[in-house]
């Protein structure tokens, strides 16, 4: 077992971990950094539940090794709500009933926090296309799409965070 010592920078904090090179980033975040908001759904990059941001870009953490993430800024779901305030997207998901069991939700939030920053005024088709990388078995997607549209409008109007 050739373990290596790394420093992972997650949500602005450093975590010193000792892991085998093969340890997936998803597992390292959950077990070694104790941030269990990132979920594991398939381990082959299809369901999107494990999506985190690496240097601001969405990455499937199940397709990345923890050793690869050293030196980069990782953002997980735990960092999205700030000071108890939900982001516009989180609030919109709540208002539009865009989650049921909640297992796919963090992956969707992370994907779209990034997507909406680059695509502030997406059409429904564009949203559905981007959302096709996240599988949800509960909602049928419609309310998630409505939430993303609502959040986009909110963010365009200058509202980033809302008090719950």
């Amino acid at each position, binding site marked *: *077992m*050739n373990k*290596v010592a790394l420093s992972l920078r997650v949500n602005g904090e450093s975590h010193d971990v000792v892991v*085998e*090179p*093969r340890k*997936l980033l998803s*597992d390292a975040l959950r077990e070694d950094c104790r941030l269990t908001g990132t979920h594991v759904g398939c*381990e*082959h*990059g299809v369901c*999107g539940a494990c*999506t985190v941001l690496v240097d601001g*870009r*969405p*990455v*499937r953490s*199940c*397709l*990345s*090794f923890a*050793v*690869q993430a050293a030196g980069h800024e990782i953002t997980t779901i735990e960092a999205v709500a700030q000071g108890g305030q939900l982001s516009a997207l989180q609030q919109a998901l709540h208002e539009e009933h865009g989650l049921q069991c909640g297992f796919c939700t963090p992956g969707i939030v992370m*994907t779209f926090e990034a*997507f909406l920053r680059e695509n502030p005024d997406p059409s429904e088709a564009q949203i559905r*296309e*981007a959302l*096709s*990388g*996240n599988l949800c078995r509960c909602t049928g997607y419609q309310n998630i799409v409505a939430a993303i549209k609502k959040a986009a409008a909110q963010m365009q109007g200058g509202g980033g965070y809302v008090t719950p």
Partner: protein
Amino acid sequence: MKPAGFSFHRPRTLNEALDLLAAHGDTAKLIAGGQSLVPVMNMRLAAPAELIDINDLPDLAEIRYQGEFVEVGALTRHHQLAESELVRSRCPLLAQAAATIGHYAIRQRGTIGGSLAHADPTAQLPLIAVTLSAEIDIASSRGRRTLSAADFFLSVMTTALEPDEIVVAIRFPVMVPGEGCAFRFFNRRLSDFAIVAVAATITVEKMRIAGLHLGIGGVAPVPLAYVDLCQRFIGQAADSGRVRELAQAVRDAVEPEDNPRISAEYRRELVQTLTERALTLALDEAKGNAA
């Protein structure tokens, strides 16, 4: 599904990477985007003893315009390719095809070098490379060489790359005046690999076909460009009748594999339908871009 163990390397320069490849050869795998490699490792269908992470290599993600070519660095991510103004204006077929790869999240990570090296028979970028007769620059500690796309792809998931070699850049010819292009494919869902994909460019001069490139993916172990077939149509009238004939000719020329899930007949039908649709679009565009 946890992968088997490996030793991890993170070279800072291309030469470092090449030395590692030379040292480990067959037991090493390069990792760039990881979107194709890691799933296979997680399922333990691949278990390289050495993993060489090339994401840090500088200068391999540039897109440069060089007169007759657009040169794309191997580490260029799909979304960069799809959104690059340079590629969209100079080599629109490439940008259009890149924009259809997977979905938003996959396009953030996947690289052109990785896609070519992976050589899935229906992937977009191998098809575009073959259709446009792209040139592929390859490096190893033994030196450099260039292969044409047709010579690069040997079979399903098999390329001419030696174990100690890495793709560094790919050169695509730029669009010419009077040219139109189209990329058409059919899949079950948005982000699936295509069952059949068709890439086409057509150049029109004085209402005649002055240039024609046609590439088909999904009918052979590698994407194929039907160069001789296209030659036969040079000089003919650039109209819908010719397009229909061409689509029929391509349908007759392809020899897809027959299997219980997808019959050879079905693939042939798709080839004809998609070729006709692609060329119709390309022709309209060409007429609009007439010199």
